[in-house]
């Protein structure tokens, strides 16, 4: 069999949004290559998930089910999918690029002598798969060479969940052989970090601070801008890592996802982990000294220069405009 298989993940009992994006990518890859596209769901109880996926334009949906897959472990998921892939011999395996996939897909690929082409933002004839390099400053086009399946994971937001084609797929089951002793790690239930008292998710105006601020002593100039604007103050990961602002103000894949009317990014270069968190912003303004910073790829307006001069000037201009 030579097909495309999309590995679908759940979130709170439903197919996750990024999994639909992966299905969308799989359908587009099928159109490009002329191959059939199928999906696989994995877990201890996958019936509900499988029936959700089976309502899409897919050839088959397979439930890879085993009691030892109730909680995610890299060992369990790798073993189960290894057996499934060895049985199906797919040409392509497409994953959503989640923290879970990052934990096991490289292992699974390596076990089969392959290498995951991870965090893909698009693909074209060949096929060649495009992913970002140098923190988003450059793109790299990758080709899979050699025999065996090509493993690809797609970046959040790179493909559109609302473009998934509808249809009906036949559902079947696959039972992997897993022994308890083969699972070496023991996960606990997930938990939240610090109390989330700052809800950036529903804020309409947000000022984000990044590394360009250079020193914690300079945070107040960003705070003054936020105050003049009536905005919440957020930050990119390094600012929170350094303890310059609390973790609960972190914007990005490991922090909060925002969708404000206006997002003003101050000294933020625009690493992909940050950009996925701001995708829903209606209007993005970037202030940065580097005109090639990736943040300008997504910004509507930009000012290139020293934020230590520009931010106070902007604060003054906003105050003047209010009078």
């Amino acid at each position: 069999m030579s097909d495309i298989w999309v590995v679908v993940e759940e979130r709170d009992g439903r197919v996750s949004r990024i999994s639909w994006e992966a299905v969308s990518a799989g359908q587009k890859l099928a159109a490009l290559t002329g191959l059939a596209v199928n999906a696989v769901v994995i877990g201890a109880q996958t019936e509900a998930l499988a029936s959700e996926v089976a309502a899409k334009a897919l050839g088959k949906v397979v439930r890879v089910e085993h009691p030892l897959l109730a909680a995610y472990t890299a060992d369990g998921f790798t073993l189960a999918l290894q057996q499934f892939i060895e049985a199906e011999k797919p040409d392509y395996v497409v994953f959503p690029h989640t923290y879970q996939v990052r934990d096991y897909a490289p292992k699974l690929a390596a076990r089969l002598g392959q290498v995951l082409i991870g965090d893909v933002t698009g693909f074209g004839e060949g096929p060649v798969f495009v992913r970002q390099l140098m923190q988003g400053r450059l793109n790299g086009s990758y080709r899979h060479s050699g025999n065996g399946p090509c493993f690809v994971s797609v970046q959040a937001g790179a493909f559109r969940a609302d473009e998934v084609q509808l249809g009906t797929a036949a559902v079947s089951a696959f039972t992997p052989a897993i022994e308890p002793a083969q699972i070496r790690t023991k996960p606990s239930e997930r938990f939240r970090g610090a109390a989330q008292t700052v809800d950036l998710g529903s804020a309409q105006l947000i000022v984000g601070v990044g590394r360009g601020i250079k020193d914690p002593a300079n945070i107040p100039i960003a705070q003054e801008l936020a105050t003049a604007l009536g905005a919440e103050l957020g930050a990119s990961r390094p600012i929170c890592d350094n303890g310059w602002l609390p973790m609960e103000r972190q914007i990005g894949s490991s922090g909060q996802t925002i969708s404000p009317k206006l997002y003003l990014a101050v000294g933020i270069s625009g690493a992909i982990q940050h950009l996925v968190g701001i995708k829903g912003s209606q209007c993005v303004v970037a202030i940065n000294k580097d005109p090639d910073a990736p943040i300008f790829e997504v910004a509507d307006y930009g000012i290139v220069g020293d934020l230590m001069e520009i931010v106070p000037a902007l604060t003054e201009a906003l105050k003047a405009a209010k009078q």
Partner: protein
Amino acid sequence: MKIIVAIKQVPERDAQVRINAEAKWIEESGLQYALNESDAYALEEALQLKEKHGGEVVVLTAGPERVGPTIREALAKGADRAIYIDCADLGSRDALGVAKLLAAAVKPENPDLILTGLQSDDLGLGQTGVILAELLGLPHSSLILHVEKTDTGLTVKRELEEGWFRTIELPLPAVLTIQSGGNKLRYATLMGIKRAKTKEVRTVTATELAVDSTPVAVLERVTLPQKQKSTQILPGNPKEAAAALVEKLKFEARVL
């Protein structure tokens, strides 16, 4: 505990990068290099574990000759010794190829724990540590913010998306990939820098390790990203640019 920390030297964060003439990678001449950020956190975690439980911290890196200062930096911060894999063509190997090199160098060391950063700031693959675990037949966990040694192994805190975490128990030996931000990074002291000069750096060549270097995932071409939006850059001095931006936000974007 004997801990190996796999680190990578990458172009400095603020470096101006240009695509090279073959459009296969970046122009390396004139670039400044630094220790990869999350690898610095992996080293910090290793040093703290050694301070608590004793043992040895060995740094491991592969690359061309220019990685020397990065090895010295790690030794100055407190690593006991280093293993350097002399590999001029590191950039043409894929994540599996690099992990094979590291695995071959790690094996005779029989460490209790292997740490590495969660991803490199240049290629950003985030796979090397996970593949290394697979090649060595060891359990692993990725995106780790906190490590605690227990009687039976380790308890680690793994980062999930959107502010969630998970605690995971795993036996030793094991491989962990470390997320940045879990600890506060130390600086090298003058004494540390002095002592680093006398610490052992064992060099092994990639040829001696005799692993397959043919990539499965081939980087064919490097290009500039296409802009998703056409950004209006507001010119002028800070005051002029700020006034122009406020006008635009009020009357064009209508978000104020």
